[in-house]
């Protein structure tokens, strides 16, 4: 069984004013664990990036009991699920020092060609990631249904938001969503985060980021020439 484990100390720069881990920082931790573990499993840089293949995140879902807080030490676990054709599922948990599970996550990764930006079949790329079953898996992310939005702003992807893949990094979508969160929602506790990365967006490209609020959810959508992403934040308390 191959489960990646990493000890993490929650720093001041990782948290918001409510001292809870910010969603974008959480996603950054999950992303780095994915990359590092994939490297350990032999499907890292020399097999992918250096050969013109890019790992991209398609969907991610996080179920939260509570977010880690400033000063806390936690354990991040991650493991790959069984490959499904061109899809690479991955699972995550964050545990506190007593072993209590604070949150669980699932994600769907795939490989694309750096040149054509099309999905690559793993057999063609010579990539295989053996799956592990721990019994702690949560369901893979479902699609996020589009919702009515009431607020919208224009956004142009700055250079500093782009990553090694040449497009806006996954965590930046969370940053931009958080920037639109109403102040009162920022004081509530999150219970679920869902993200659909529908299409990449690159430096200089523009999209309208829209927000819709209903019941205990904030829904964000990035749209321009195409639909770029959806984010759904669900809270424990009704608005």
């Amino acid at each position: 069984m191959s489960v990646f484990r990493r000890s993490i100390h929650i720093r001041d720069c990782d948290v918001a004013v409510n001292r809870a881990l910010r969603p974008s920082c959480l996603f950054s931790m999950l992303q780095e664990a994915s990359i590092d573990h994939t490297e350990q499993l032999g499907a890292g840089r020399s097999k992918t990036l250096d050969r013109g293949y890019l790992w991209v995140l398609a969907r991610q879902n996080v179920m939260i009991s509570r977010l880690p807080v400033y000063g806390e030490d936690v354990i991040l676990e991650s493991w790959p699920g069984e490959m499904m054709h061109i899809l690479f599922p991955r699972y995550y948990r964050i545990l506190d020092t007593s072993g209590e599970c604070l949150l669980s996550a699932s994600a769907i990764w795939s490989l694309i060609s750096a040149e054509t930006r099309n999905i690559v079949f793993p057999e063609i790329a010579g990539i295989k990631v053996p799956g592990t079953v721990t019994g702690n898996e949560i369901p893979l992310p479902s699609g996020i249904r589009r919702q009515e939005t009431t607020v919208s702003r224009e956004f142009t992807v700055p250079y500093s938001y782009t990553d090694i893949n040449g497009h806006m990094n996954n965590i930046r979508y969370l940053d931009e969503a958080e920037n639109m969160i109403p102040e009162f929602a920022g004081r509530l506790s999150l219970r679920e985060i869902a993200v659909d990365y529908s299409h990449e967006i690159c430096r200089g490209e523009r999209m309208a980021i829209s927000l819709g609020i209903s019941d205990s959810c904030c829904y964000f959508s990035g749209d321009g020439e195409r639909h770029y992403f959806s984010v759904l934040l669900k809270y424990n308390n009704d608005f």
Partner: protein
Amino acid sequence: MKREEVSEIIKKIIYDCVPDSVPEDITDDTVVNTDTAIDSMGFILVICRCEAELGVKVPERRWQKLSTFGDLVDEFMRQLEKTKK
């Protein structure tokens, strides 16, 4: 498994995976794979979920032939029939 049962299973999976990509009343003629170049993550997720739910595999070489909901149902019925033999 009857075609109606398979149809309902696939329909539920489609609504779950790609809730905004299809109308509320899916028929056999409803186009579910708008990108036959197999770049549609949603369509691929549907295939994978259907495979897991129905316990059969659809070869990747057949994906490009699957455009409508009816095509999907027929293909999974075909694969289910194969497992009986």
